[in-house]
């Protein structure tokens, strides 16, 4: 048993914290929230130079061969600082399944540009319902003897508007609940027949609605096997969920820290408000939530990095992350009083992202259901 990070992970953490606190200030986050592109290309380039975009790639594709736990360390820091932009969609949602399922030719073509920070990717999975189940996928890809033709809609695709490539999950056969007959395609984002619109969100986090009309894709651009697309999705979801949870966990730690500091600093009735038991106990509950979430995330990440099956721990972490992020933000704001309700205060930046994180990769009910399955119900 060992709860500590290794030396390399500690170095990564320190480096990430230094870099992000310098480059990704809250003022910059505010600007980017309102920016059409929603990210800073220079910052992304610098992150690529630091080796972050290719962190978990095999060395032959320009990476450093690190594992999921290392990326968890990084995501936690990104969550703590709120890094806006397509890092998550490119690396967690798209590169991870490419590393696992792509052919050597595909890997050689697609991974190095991601590692270099030159390519942005977006996952086009969810549709009108915004839900992450195979039954919700209707977008179709029909083979005409030469090519596949994609028709349908995708909703809430992150940073698709600035992406070079999309991973599009399509139905390639009869609709079935268990996800057979789904296939994942690699599609150039600027392909003819794709229309994109930005969905304005409270987080301003670059989510798009895509419409596909007879978008031509070659057989060569299938990721994994025809009809086995949900396996790819399931694989990427488990890992991306853990990474999203790490991001949320980092955000929760930041909210905890700023609230704790404020409770020591803010004086009312001639005492720091942290001296009032009502406030102190709320902070203690926050701490329990935050520490507990952190360990659930590490546990799920560790299991995955050992190659073990982790369905239930992953869902435990996500269901918990959804709840904790919301609770910590609400209590944090209330402990701040009116100042927590303002645009100038950092805490609102976190609160504005609660719903995005919650519905990304499965809401609480979906994951509670998986936990129910996990305990034998």
């Amino acid at each position, binding site marked *: 048993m060992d709860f500590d990070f290794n030396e390399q992970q500690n170095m990564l953490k320190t480096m990430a914290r230094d870099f992000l606190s310098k480059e990704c200030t809250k003022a910059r986050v505010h600007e980017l929230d309102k920016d059409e592109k929603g990210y800073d290309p220079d910052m992304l380039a610098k992150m690529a130079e630091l080796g972050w975009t290719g962190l978990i790639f095999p060395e032959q594709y320009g990476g450093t061969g690190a594992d999921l736990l290392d990326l968890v360390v990084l995501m936690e820091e990104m969550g703590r600082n709120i890094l806006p932009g397509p890092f998550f969609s490119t690396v967690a949602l798209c590169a991870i399944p490419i590393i696992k399922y792509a052919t050597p030719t595909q890997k050689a073509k697609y991974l190095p540009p991601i590692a270099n920070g030159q390519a942005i990717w977006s996952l086009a999975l969810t549709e009108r319902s915004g*839900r992450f189940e195979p039954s919700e996928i209707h977008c179709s890809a029909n083979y005409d003897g030469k090519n596949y033709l994609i028709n349908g809609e995708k909703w809430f695709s992150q940073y698709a508007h600035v992406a070079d490539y999309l991973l599009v999950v399509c139905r390639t056969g009869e609709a079935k609940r268990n996800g057979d007959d789904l296939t994942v395609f690699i599609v150039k984002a600027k392909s003819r027949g794709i229309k994109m619109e930005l969905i304005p969100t409270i987080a301003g986090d670059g989510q798009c609605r895509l419409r596909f009309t007879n978008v031509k894709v070659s057989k060569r651009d299938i990721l994994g096997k025809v009809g086995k697309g949900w396996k790819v999705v399931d694989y990427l979801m488990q890992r991306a969920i853990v990474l999203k949870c790490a991001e949320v966990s980092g955000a929760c730690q930041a909210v905890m820290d700023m609230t704790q500091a404020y409770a020591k600093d803010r004086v009312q009735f*001639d005492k720091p408000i942290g001296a009032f038991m*009502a*406030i102190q106990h709320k902070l203690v509950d926050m701490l329990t939530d935050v520490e507990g979430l952190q360990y659930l995330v590490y546990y799920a990440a560790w299991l995955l990095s050992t190659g073990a099956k982790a369905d239930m721990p992953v869902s435990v972490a996500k269901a918990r992350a959804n709840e904790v992020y919301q609770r910590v933000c609400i209590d944090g704001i209330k402990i701040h009083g*009116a100042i927590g*309700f303002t*645009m100038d205060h950092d805490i609102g930046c976190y609160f504005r992202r609660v719903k995005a994180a919650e519905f990304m990769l499965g809401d*609480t*009910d979906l994951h509670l259901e998986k936990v129910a399955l996990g305990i034998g119900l």
Partner: protein
Amino acid sequence: MDFKFAEKEEKLRDEVRKFAISEMRGKQVVSGMEEESRDEDWEFSMQMSKKLAQKGWLTMAWPREYGGRDASFFEQHVYINEASYWGIPGSTMGVSGIGWVGPSLMIFGNEEQRKKYIPPIAAGDPDGVWCTAYSEPNAGSDFANIQTRAIKNGDEYILNGQKIWTSCAHRARWCWLAVRTDPAVTKKQHGISLIILDMKSPGITINPIVNYAGIHIFNELFFDNVRVPVANLVGTENRGWYHLMQSLAFERHSIAPQFYGMAQRSLEFIVDYCKVTQYNGKQLAADPLVRHKLAERAIELDMLKMFGYEITWKMSKGVIPIYEAARNKAYCDYVMQRLATTGTDVIGAYAQVDIRSKWSKIKGNITRLYMMFPGLSVAAGTDEVQKNIVGQFKLGLPRSY
């Protein structure tokens, strides 16, 4: 026992409903805070205030001589509840004037002040729009800690200092202002006075403060040698704290019927949404999980409704509610939080869509409630402060701070 409203009150409810439907034409759905509105919406609000005044509803519980119609607390309850159910803008005119300035002036204002300031409020005029400036950077929950100074100089006070979180200051004609007139006191509750400030006075700077959802509700006020006639002192000099305690009671008693109306409408919207939304080939409304969550919210709302009835009934018996108002405020905050979180859960991914987007569900109302409830819970006294009041005044427990 009898939990029915009288026929007169039911008739009033009906009239307000008809008025809302014919006048609003889908303009606004669930009321939040009027002062959050943009300029064009504010203009519409003011037109509605005027119409509500003409109907005799705006300040219906006030005596006739002040532009009211001596309506009972029950009638007022029904009106407030219904107006907030429909989200009729203008029904509170930025809150302060109707909520507490008018009633306070009737109790401790002088005749001249009543004549000058009450009629424009009751008439729904722009000159009847008030803001309230109590809070300062170092005086929030501990609001006796205020430092803004008013120094008497002949027949004027000279004001210097800073207020913060002043809702509606950017719309208000007048400000209901708490200042320190005597700093050399042993107890900080002493030496506070209440003053009517003309918002057009030279020396006032108003800086907007935008909330985290990008909405401008409140402001920062700076006073630089602002001159106020001594005639604008309300009540007795240095006794402001005690006047204010009475004012605050007015502020809180209508919270339950008001929030109940808004919450009830929101719940109905969510229920309707569940009926027309399919998921996995089934109506959301058929999902036992969704059903139970919404049923729990309905139970919470029923309790809120009873608290609202109870406080109105007590007032009709001449009881001044103290702990009840505090209990209701704290409970309202709880109910709103539960409703907003359940509502956004039900709406799913669309809950994160910007409230003004064509893709937002239920016209953005639930998302708006979600973004606003933490602020609403802090405004007019936090949860902890309300619970401190209940603990002390109802349970007779020793002061906890």
